C-alpha cells in the first residue's frame, strides 16, 4: 500500500476492452433501460445503422453497439449527435474521451465489483460489426478463462 494524502492505492489488474474506429459504440451511464432503447432506436433509424445490441454493464449502465460499418469521421458525427441530442453529460464525456484517443472502446472484462457486460436486447441485423464485436468478445473471454486456469499454450 502506498499512501497519497487521503487516497489509498492498491495493486490491481487492468481492464480489457474492445477498441475500433469502424463500429458505432455508445456508453450510457446512470440511465434507465427505456432511455437507452429509445436513443438506440432513434440513432439506428436516423443514420440507417441496420441494427443494434444493448449490453448491461452494471445497474443503470448500458453499452450499445450498432451493426453497420462506418468511417471514423462518420462515427464521431453519430456519437456526437446522440450526446448532444440526449443531453446526457456522461455520454458527452465518453464521446470526448473517444475523440482524444481516435477510436472508441467498450469494456469486456470485469472491473472491480462490476461484472462483464451481458447482452440484454437485440434489434435488427446482427451480421456486420455486431458479429465482429461479439466474436472478439468471445476471444477475450477465452483468454481470460485460460489466464484464470493458468493454462500454458506453448
Amino acid at each position, binding site marked *: 500500500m502506498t499512501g497519497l494524502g487521503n487516497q489509498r*492505492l492498491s495493486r490491481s489488474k487492468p481492464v480489457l476492452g474492445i*477498441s475500433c474506429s469502424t463500429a458505432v459504440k455508445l456508453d450510457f451511464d446512470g440511465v434507465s433501460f427505456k432511455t437507452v432503447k429509445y436513443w438506440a432506436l432513434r440513432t439506428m433509424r436516423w443514420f440507417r445503422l441496420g441494427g443494434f445490441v444493448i449490453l448491461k454493464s452494471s445497474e443503470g449502465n448500458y453499452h450499445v453497439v450498432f451493426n453497420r460499418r462506418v468511417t471514423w469521421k462518420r462515427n464521431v458525427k453519430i456519437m456526437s449527435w446522440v450526446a448532444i441530442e440526449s443531453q446526457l453529460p456522461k455520454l458527452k464525456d465518453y464521446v470526448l474521451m473517444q475523440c482524444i484517443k481516435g477510436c472508441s472502446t467498450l469494456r469486456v472484462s470485469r472491473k472491480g465489483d462490476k461484472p462483464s457486460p451481458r447482452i440484454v436486447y437485440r434489434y435488427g441485423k446482427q451480421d456486420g460489426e455486431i458479429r465482429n464485436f461479439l466474436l472478439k468478445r468471445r476471444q477475450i473471454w477465452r483468454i481470460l478463462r485460460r489466464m484464470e486456469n493458468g493454462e500454458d499454450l506453448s
Partner: protein
Amino acid sequence: MGKVRTEIWKNVGIVRVERDERGKFIRWWKVTGRESSGKMVAVYGYVWEDGRIVSKRYEFTGSGRDLYWAVMLAHEMPPKGRFVTVSAREFVRHPWEYARLGGFSHDWIGKPEVES
C-alpha cells in the same frame, strides 16, 4: 457490380471472381490475406508515476496465441507511454521496448479510493 465469390485456381491460389447476372466473367483478383475486422484488444488501467496517478493503455492487433501472450504480459507490465498501439506478435517478441519492468511503482493500480 455483379456477383463476387471465392474460388481456388490451380497455380494461382485463392481468388475472388466477379461475374454478372448471366455468369459472364468480369474480373478477378488474388486474396492476399484474411480480411481483418479492425478490432483491437485494449488493456487499460492506472499507474502510479512521478508522484501522480496516470491512466495508460495498450491496444493490441492480432489474434490467437500471440494475443493471449500479449495480454498475459500486459497484465504484469504497464506500458512506457500513455497510449501504446502495437501488434500482439511484435509485443510478445520485444516486450521491453513497450513495457516497464519491475517494482511496485511499475505495477497496475486500482482506481484510487478516497478515505473518508
